[in-house]
């Protein structure tokens, strides 16, 4: 009964909320627009935007040395999670069945192991850093903790359900994933989409001003 609810209606509600929420959030950001800059441009804005979106993947030197741990743990978590989310066999099967209809290449089992270990190590480290570092502790809001805990629980239940033979464990994983999908558009987790906008905006304005940023 509850299982059918999680597997059926709730899944559609969650994915619908996620899709509409993300579109609405992006639309409301883009609708604000950019203030007209009347100064003569000293550089190519769009080119700067594209350049910055990619160049910011490599942080600047002071960030590398001061925040080495966050940098490493951050990349570990994000890359690991990305690999798990889109290239783990159960996920590919699920997405192919429910959304795309076609499958794509999946990670071999050892790749799956490494990706999940990396993702877990990174997430727990970042979480502990947020809790223990006096500055990040002051900066963190409830939103950050809810997002972290939800992602962690989704990953944890996913790993507990790895035997793929106990339906309640799969449903628990799916249920938490649905909660995450509903929560996603209205939280800091939107950075998965908005980082392009913020980097692009910074890159475009700076390039237009002729600043090497």
């Amino acid at each position, binding site marked *: 009964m509850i299982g059918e609810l999680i597997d059926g209606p709730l899944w559609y509600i969650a994915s619908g909320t996620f899709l509409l929420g993300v579109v609405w959030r992006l639309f409301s950001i883009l609708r604000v627009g950019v203030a007209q800059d009347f100064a003569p441009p000293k550089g190519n804005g769009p080119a700067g935007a594209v350049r910055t979106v990619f160049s910011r993947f490599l942080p600047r030197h002071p960030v590398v040395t001061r925040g080495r741990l966050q940098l490493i743990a951050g990349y570990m978590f994000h890359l690991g999670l990305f690999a798990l989310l889109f290239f*783990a066999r*159960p996920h590919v099967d699920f997405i192919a069945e429910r959304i795309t209809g076609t499958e794509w290449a999946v990670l071999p*089992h050892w790749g*799956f*192991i490494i990706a999940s270990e990396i993702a877990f190590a990174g997430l727990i480290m970042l979480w502990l850093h947020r809790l223990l570092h006096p500055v990040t502790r002051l900066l963190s809001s409830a939103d950050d903790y809810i997002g972290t805990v939800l992602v962690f629980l989704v990953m944890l239940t996913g790993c507990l359900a*790895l*035997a*793929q*033979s106990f339906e309640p464990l799969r449903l628990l994983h799916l249920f938490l994933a649905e909660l995450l999908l509903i929560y996603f558009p209205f939280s800091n987790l939107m950075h998965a989409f908005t980082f392009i906008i913020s980097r692009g905006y910074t890159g475009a304005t700076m390039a237009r001003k002729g600043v090497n940023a």
Partner: protein
Amino acid sequence: MARMKFYCDVERCIECNGCVTACKNENEVPWGVNRRRVVTIKDGEPGERSLSVACMHCSDAPCAAVCPVDCFYTTDDGVVLHDKDICIGCGYCFYACPFGAPQFPEDGAFASRGKMDKCTFCAGGPEQDNSAEEQRKYGSNRLAEGKLPLCAEMCATKALLAGDANIISTIYRTRVVNRGASVLSRGVSYQNAELRAARGVKGKSSLND
């Protein structure tokens, strides 16, 4: 009730692997899993012998003793079976079993051990006898149809015996009496014909021809 046992007559096994093939075919065993295997000792040397081995359906089964979720049970026929809905694939039965009977398909996302699979004496599992579900998880349930395991039924030389322990041991005892303790220790079997005839033991006897 009957107490089901396998017995492999080493004097007769010719390592044809017919039992292995019969088992795989009858039970649709997944890749990488061999419920039954034939082991040859002293391959190519004097005294070479082959034995077909699978789950021996022990009376005090080590696998059942060490299972952390207690998924094993013994049927009224003395067949040791397990419930794949409960098995978690930890591999402890594999460590404890002397015969290497428990097998694990490398499946699941991590290719960690999947649900354990082993010889069921062609007796299926806890599901409804001969249901599609039972067929899928455990293979055939010939015992419920009144038949014996296919490996033994298919054995060309009747080396592999399966059935009630009393009947199996009677058959084997008769064979031993007929040929002497071992073909190798006593020379070729027909050389003992004279001996048998002198004692009035039944069996192939050149003297009686």
